[in-house]
């Protein structure tokens, strides 16, 4: 198929958790609402309403910082069960249109509608209908992006928020990308962004100015990906049957600590949470990743691959304790996380190398 003939829609709910809270509690409407850790506790902002964003608050910001920026904000604890239920309704709406739905999280998904569009029904019309259907069934707004690949569709949905609908046609793709800030590109995190900025790259246009050789030299294998993204080349398919890549849990401690007993206790609790999530999804994994964030917010990860996929608390706990031994606890710990990756279905038999003792 021609690289530009696919029709991909990216739907992203607007300030999802906060909007659900405002829908369910009329007194929150029109106010800055922050869902996440409470200001006297030590969590971070999960989502905040548009009213709160005006104050410079954004997700992943420590709740205490958010409180400093906007003391009058309404702080609420997340009600995950409710969000999950709403998410299921939304996903069901998507599936009424196509089987090619790839959820990225509770409030975000890609849809490939290439097969159902025709001259009379454009992808843009489908996106508009889906937005209306979501509003009717859940009372919430979503922003949609329509284009011919995932990269552009996602950037499009981000272009006008809230309640936006942005279409990027092949003719307009490069002009659109040229104006996008470099940090908004898929796969460009803080570190990559910083390095690109040092190379004088601030927008998509700057990125497109770099040769493949220059990018490969600076970013080795990922250089090619950046080179292609700058040219709006993104062949990733929408994967409807996608098994999740990883399952993880993390927790911000109630107080920074360097007490090993306490750290190990938290790891055990996390291992339990991860193990039950694996069980629920009927998967098991071969890689365990331990994440440790220190008091100064520096974060490190350590990973181990085991020969046979694991699912139980004991296995995951043992791996994470082994990984912890590799970590130099140079400062007090703020956050701990465990995730299990390289998942596979748990109901197939697996080969086990038996042990002598």
């Amino acid at each position: 198929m021609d690289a530009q003939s696919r029709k991909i829609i990216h739907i992203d709910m607007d300030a999802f958790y906060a909007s659900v809270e405002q829908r369910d509690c009329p007194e929150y409407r029109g106010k800055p609402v922050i869902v996440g850790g409470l200001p006297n506790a030590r969590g971070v902002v999960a989502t905040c309403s548009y009213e709160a964003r005006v104050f410079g608050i954004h997700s992943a910001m420590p709740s205490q910082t958010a409180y400093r920026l906007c003391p009058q904000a309404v702080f609420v604890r997340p009600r995950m069960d409710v969000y999950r239920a709403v998410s299921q309704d939304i996903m069901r709406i998507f599936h009424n249109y196509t089987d090619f739905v790839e959820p990225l999280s509770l409030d975000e998904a890609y849809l490939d509608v290439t097969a159902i569009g025709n001259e009379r029904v454009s992808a843009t019309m489908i996106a508009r209908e889906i937005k209306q259907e979501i509003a009717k069934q859940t009372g919430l707004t979503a922003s949609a992006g329509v284009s011919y690949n995932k990269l552009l569709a996602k950037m499009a949905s981000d272009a006008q928020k809230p309640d936006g609908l942005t279409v990027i046609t092949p003719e307009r793709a490069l002009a659109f990308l040229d104006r996008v800030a470099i940090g908004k590109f898929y796969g460009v995190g803080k570190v990559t962004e910083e390095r690109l900025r040092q190379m004088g790259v601030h927008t998509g246009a700057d990125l497109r100015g770099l040769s493949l050789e220059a990018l490969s030299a600076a970013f080795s294998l990922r250089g090619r990906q950046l080179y292609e993204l700058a040219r709006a080349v993104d062949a990733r398919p929408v994967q409807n049957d996608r098994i999740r890549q990883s399952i993880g849990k993390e927790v911000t401690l109630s107080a920074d600590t360097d007490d090993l007993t306490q750290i190990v206790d938290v790891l055990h609790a996390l291992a339990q949470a991860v193990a039950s999530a694996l069980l629920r999804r009927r998967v098991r994994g071969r890689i365990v990743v331990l994440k440790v964030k220190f008091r100064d917010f520096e974060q490190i990860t350590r990973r181990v691959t085991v020969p046979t996929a694991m699912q139980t608390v004991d296995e995951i706990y043992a791996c994470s304790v082994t990984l912890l031994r590799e970590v130099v606890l140079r400062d007090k710990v703020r956050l701990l996380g465990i995730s299990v990756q390289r998942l596979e279905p748990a109901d197939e038999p697996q080969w086990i190398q038996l042990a002598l003792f």
Partner: protein
Amino acid sequence: MRIVVQKNTLLQALQTVAKAVPSRTTKPVLYGIHIEATSESLILTGYNLEFGFEVTVTATDNQDVPMIQIEETGAIVLTARYLLDIVRKLPHTLVRIDTQELTATIRSGNATYTLNGLDPREYPATQEIADDRGFAISCATMRELVERTAFATSTSESRPVLTGVLWKYENGLLTLSATDSHRMATQGTEVETLRDYALIESIIPGKSLQELAKSLPTDDTLANIQIEEKQLLVSFANIRFFSQLIEGRYPDLSRIIPQAFKTSITIGIKSLQDCVERAALLARDTENQIIRLHLRRTEIEISSHSPEIGKIVESVEPNTFEGEDMVLACNAKFLLEGLRAIPGEDVLIQFTSPGSAFTLTPTATSTHIQLMQPVRQVYI
């Protein structure tokens, strides 16, 4: 230091000690070789904090051309990599090394090299052994002990003791054993002891022993072995090898060797090896490199399959077969490594059940025994 030494003597000594020079270390002085001229001899040392080699070159009277001539004593540390490259390429059979403070001048024929050295006082001291009495065995035997066991050590640091080889001495018998918890190899030998050792159980890093084995001659040269509280020392010819021990408790292996078997086969090692190697071609990419063994009186069928690629079936005829037919699966890499360590032409393999360990030995009464756990398919 002012010395004249034969190029080949020096090169041989350097090549031996360089085996202990680390490729990565936090102590830069260890990238060097410690060279010391005493009034009688030249002593070269390479060391990586885990193990080390020391070679002593002494002038002996009965030589037409003396191996070494020491004009002035002294010591220096010179970077191993450059020193080796230089000595290897020297044009003349004799080499003169003079040092001035921390600079060494190496002359041979018309070539002159000046190398910046490191301070020998920074080089970590290697422990002296108080009592030089120990076990005596031939180098060839020592080499066998290591080569038939060290391959079974673990490469994972999750249980450090398993990266080592257990040396056990009891009642005149020295036994080396290694296991990575999936397979085990053990080899014993009678030794003469000059000291009144009681029971010894020490764990020596497998990696250092493998380096030792490479430098042992394959003849009857006597190797003297001393096991101390903190280190192992093996001296042979003009070489001393020393290694740290691994601390910790080694798992009890005394009860894991099965005594009764359901199926026993003897089979030519070479033909079995070839067969397993071919069958393993498809198993290579799977995690445990799984091959299936179908044991039948008439033939041993070995197969492997990969859902994506295909299937291989091979068979080999056993020399003898006693007991029941059996089907089991095992790791091809383990089996091949095990077969490689078995001396002689035939191997005796004895099975109890598809889910329990089988043994590999040269003969039923051998002091070399290997144990291997099969792999099983399970639903979990």
